[in-house]
């Protein structure tokens, strides 16, 4: 296992370099640069000023020089400075990752717990009214864009009913309080959680239905085991594999955030930072976040494989 992990980590290094090279290249291919984002369309910036700014931002350097500089600085722990706000990229990420972890962690936890539970219930009670209702819910949860549900939720629960604040992370200017934070958290987390519930439920239902038809489940029942034991110990554990994949694939989103929901609710997370970076062609922010997400994705994939081996003894990582 140890050798496997080391091997995977070593393989991750060239993959990471390739990812950063691709991101750097995409930046060059995308229309507009930070200077274009920076100057209002009807404002004249003389050529001398434009060149001065281009030089200050390093945009006049060849691609490989810029990439080499970034790589060298990154190895020293310096991901650069935001062109728009002038804060360091590490600071920008550090001050926003907590908010994203809170939002996505809550949504993923609630979504996975409820999704697995509903999925198992739907599978066990296949073709019942409850199964039908849950299937319709899942379909809606997957199909309706979070952008729409987010605005609808704000309109209904913040404006019409007044149950929750209209977006934000906390009440501005007020000291931190857990209840205030939770009140701001519930709506956006619930919207994201609905999506996770729907996805997880569909996967769990399918996996459970497949497992419940297996010979070993029939054998367990034939041995006279309690149905709950059959489902919990024999079926559920074997049905977990695809769910583990789903959770593993969701881990990068824990850090990456939800761009639309963070924007609609004014949640100061990584997703919104990335969107703002793209809109303003803030290259250091875009590359910094992508680099971080690449690391998290590679580690999440590794963790998923390890969990596979723990859950399923047939899988040997060596």
């Amino acid at each position: 296992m140890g050798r496997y992990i080391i091997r995977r980590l070593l393989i991750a290094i060239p993959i990471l370099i390739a990812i950063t090279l691709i991101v750097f290249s995409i930046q060059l291919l995308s229309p507009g640069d930070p200077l274009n984002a920076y100057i209002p369309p009807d404002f004249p910036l003389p050529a001398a000023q434009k060149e001065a700014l281009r030089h200050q931002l390093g945009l006049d350097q060849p691609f490989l020089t810029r990439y080499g500089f970034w790589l060298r600085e990154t190895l020293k722990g310096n991901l650069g400075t935001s062109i728009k706000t002038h804060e360091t990229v590490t600071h920008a990420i550090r001050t926003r990752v907590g908010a994203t972890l809170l939002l996505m962690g809550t949504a993923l936890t609630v979504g996975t717990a409820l999704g697995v539970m509903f999925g198992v219930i739907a599978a066990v009670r296949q073709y019942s009214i409850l199964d039908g209702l849950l299937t319709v819910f899942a379909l809606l949860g997957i199909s309706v864009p979070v952008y729409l549900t987010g605005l609808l939720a704000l309109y209904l629960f913040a404006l019409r009913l007044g149950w929750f604040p209209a977006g934000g992370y906390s009440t501005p200017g007020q000291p931190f309080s857990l209840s205030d934070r939770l009140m701001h958290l519930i709506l956006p987390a619930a919207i994201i959680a609905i999506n996770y519930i729907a996805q997880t439920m569909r996967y769990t239902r399918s996996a459970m239905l497949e497992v419940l038809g297996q010979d070993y489940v029939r054998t367990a029942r034939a041995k006279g085991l309690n149905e709950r034991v059959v489902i919990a110990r024999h079926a559920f554990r074997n049905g977990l594999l695809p769910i583990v994949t789903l959770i593993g694939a969701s881990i990068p989103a824990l850090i990456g955030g939800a761009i639309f929901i963070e924007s609609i609710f004014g949640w100061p997370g990584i997703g919104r930072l990335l969107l703002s970076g793209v809109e303003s062609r803030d290259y250091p922010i875009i590359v910094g976040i992508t680099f971080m997400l690449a690391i998290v994705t590679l580690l999440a994939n590794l963790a998923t494989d390890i969990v596979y081996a723990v859950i399923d003894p047939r899988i040997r990582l060596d």
Partner: protein
Amino acid sequence: MRSQGRFKRPMQWIGILALMIGLIAPSIALAQDATPAAGGGGVLVGAFDVGPGGCPECPNPLQAGAGFTWFEKYYSKLMLYKSDFSAIEGDLAESWELNADATEYTIHLRDGVTWHDGEPFTSADVKFTVETAAAPDSASYIGAKFAGVKSIDTPDPLTVVLHLDEGNVTLLDAFTFLVMLPEHALKDISPADLVASTWWLDHPIGTGPFKWKKYVPGQYIELEAFDNYWRGRPKLDGLINRFFPEPGSSVIALQSGDIKFTYLTRDEATGLEGKTDLTVLSGPSQVLNYLAFNLADERFTDARVRQAFMYAIDRPTIIEQLYGGQATLANCTYILPQFVPEGLNDYAQNVDTAKQLLTDAGFDASKPVEIVTYYNDQLSQDVLLTIQQFMADAGVTVDIRAVDVPTFNQISPDPKAWTMMFAGAANGPEPDVISTGLETGQPNNNYGVSDPDLDKLWAEGRSTVDPDARAKIYQEACKIINDKVYWATMWVPTRFGGVSTSIENFVWVPAPGGGRYYDQAELWSLAS
């Protein structure tokens, strides 16, 4: 079935709940920040950076093209417009004189003004600010307006004399853009380093009515009342500028009472009609919407083709039907009456005339005309679809391409990359601000406009001190633009803001880039 009644044991649910709390709790701890308490009541929370006049989290006012509504709460300028934009009045400047040919400005500063750290505001700060902004390394287009300043004298702490290489009366307008910076705090930072300095977001110092309290990344900036503000301590204890990446959310926050002010679109303003706790503010945007022609494209070099576009498009109907009457028709680049002469062609829609002009000019209608725009809002899309239909009636196929601002800015200087544009340009109150787009050799004249008569008028307009004589010059320019249709001028739309009725003495009017007028922020107060 045996399966019924499964999963009802409470221990399972308790286990799941414990798991969830276990996962969430560390996240909450991570997400905490040490937000100190506000100063109590009297803190006004608003969305001062929503809409085209805003620039959320833009820290450097020398480089920001917008956001002045907010900047002016903690920085100050030498001059500001009156809130009706009828005249420029002194802010940190008490008075000023220009010599006969506008090559020398003598500015007398207000006595007793102090920076937020208690240091006195002096002529040295003005000299430092102008020189810093004008340095090419500052990469400031606001500073670029001061490129013609040869030297600056500071004969005493309250007097500044600017010597220009050629006459230019428009510096008065430029001063309404330029926030004053403290020499004592910034003198050791070079203009190049100041561009990306962290000073802007780390307790910057101004002379405005409010002083910096804190910046919470991604959430808001908080200011507190400046006790020694020269007009008197503000009635409010503080101001908070909350960031809204999605403008629609700010309207919901306004309606729910979470904030007291935000920018509104026309549809949002209409939706707030009849609300007793909110007031809709409105005014001309001072932004001209126009269709620009790429004059490097030989299809548009004949003025008759450009005039045909004006005749084909029923502008009054668009204003009435799509803008709900909330826009002012523009027959040249200006709508302020002093710059608009009698007898302009109003280009009332006449499709037959449009077709005839296109035929006479030999316009090649076999190829479609693409209109590129950076306006991505629904109203603008509706407007362009309507224009597309009007042009189809005249036999011209129009394609529409909406892009974001960076893409537009990359495209626009390249004459091979575009055919026509639908864009906006500030057209007031200073008539010269729009001239650079139509002047030979100016950096934002991306259209290939080169008219010696216009160039002569622009130069005369800048160096003429007498307001009446200046107005006549811009009337002449207006006539030429109306006749030659270098831009198919459309309209100046009205813009809107929504404010809670609980704010007293609140003043807000739309302006390009926001602010630049005296909004008496020190008198704002919250009704008890």
